């Protein structure tokens, strides 16, 4: 195996582990009393991270391919509509996600769309 791959894998792996586990470790060690969870503004800030992260990831996963290939727009729109409809109807993530992906594939492959 290539030595460069081994080194990068180990170095980045350690850094990723530190960034993922480190905050839990630090917070647990310095938070002796669970009632003292910091100021209100901090709770609000931390409470906003989750939904903001998901929203950002949706944008980052969706926008670049659309900018690169604008004729995907219609298929993406239909895929999102199908996903939203199925999710609100059945409240199940897996079938909604997979059905939307297949719908996107079918629309993008077989429905002509000129942007």
């Amino acid at each position, binding site marked *: 195996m290539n030595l460069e791959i081994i080194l990068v894998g180990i170095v980045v792996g350690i850094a990723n582990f530190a960034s993922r586990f480190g905050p839990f470790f630090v917070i*647990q060690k310095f938070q002796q009393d669970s009632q003292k969870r910091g100021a*209100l503004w901090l709770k609000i800030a931390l409470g906003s991270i*989750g939904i903001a992260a998901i929203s950002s990831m949706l*944008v980052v996963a*969706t926008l670049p391919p659309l900018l690169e290939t604008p004729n995907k727009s219609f298929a993406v729109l239909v895929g999102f509509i199908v996903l939203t409809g199925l999710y609100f109807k059945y409240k199940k993530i897996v079938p909604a996600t997979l059905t939307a992906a297949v719908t996107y594939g079918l629309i993008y492959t077989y429905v002509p769309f000129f942007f």
Partner: protein
Amino acid sequence: MSEHKTLSTQPAGFWQGAKDSQAIIFTYLPVSFAFGVSATQFGFSAWEALFLSCTMYAGASQFLVVALLGSGTSIWMTALTVIALDIRHLLYGPALTNLIQDRLNLKKTAIWAWGLTDEVFASGMIKLSQRRQQWSESWMLGLSLFSWMSWALGSLLGGLFADQVSKLPQFLQAALDFLLPALFLSFLLAAFEKKHTFVVSVTLVVSAIACYFIDLSAAIFIGILSGIFAGLFKHYVLKQPDDAYAGGSHES
């Protein structure tokens, strides 16, 4: 995950976490398969792709690693670039801790936190936000471990069967590109509540602008920061506190 409809308030266990990871598994397998294919195209072996997925477990950043190394960039510059891309993970621990009521078992936490990718974080956050009593470290361990295994397996398969992708029907090849956006929209629908409207709107707009004018990894980080500021702005300037904070206008 959110489709788990039981009204039980018992904490979910390891196998329920494994079961709830299926949305992530169905997304990770094709995406990591694509990573394995990409790695072989840059001259790396299937086993090197597997090694990177097992040790780094860095999602899209891994595509960058093989591209950088394949184009002759130094290993240290490659490592620093990927570490900078993944710095957002620092925010995930505090965000989850804010919702976790029990004291953590740090040995167990170290294992599931290793697999705290964007998708696993989103699943954990949804569980903690909507069915907090069902969340447990064992559930998180099952979710995290099976997601990691699917990512590693997909990378190996992609490296071994890189030449088979072109034999898939064209619409299925196209469908693979849409899995990640679809998964994140599913997560957003599952996590969304009316009180999030302002934060989500601001984040979507700001991250889209950052994505267009700066770059992808910066867009996630900037998007999260804008969401934090939007949450604070809504509470302190617009005077629209969430129910959870409505009675806590005093600083503790």
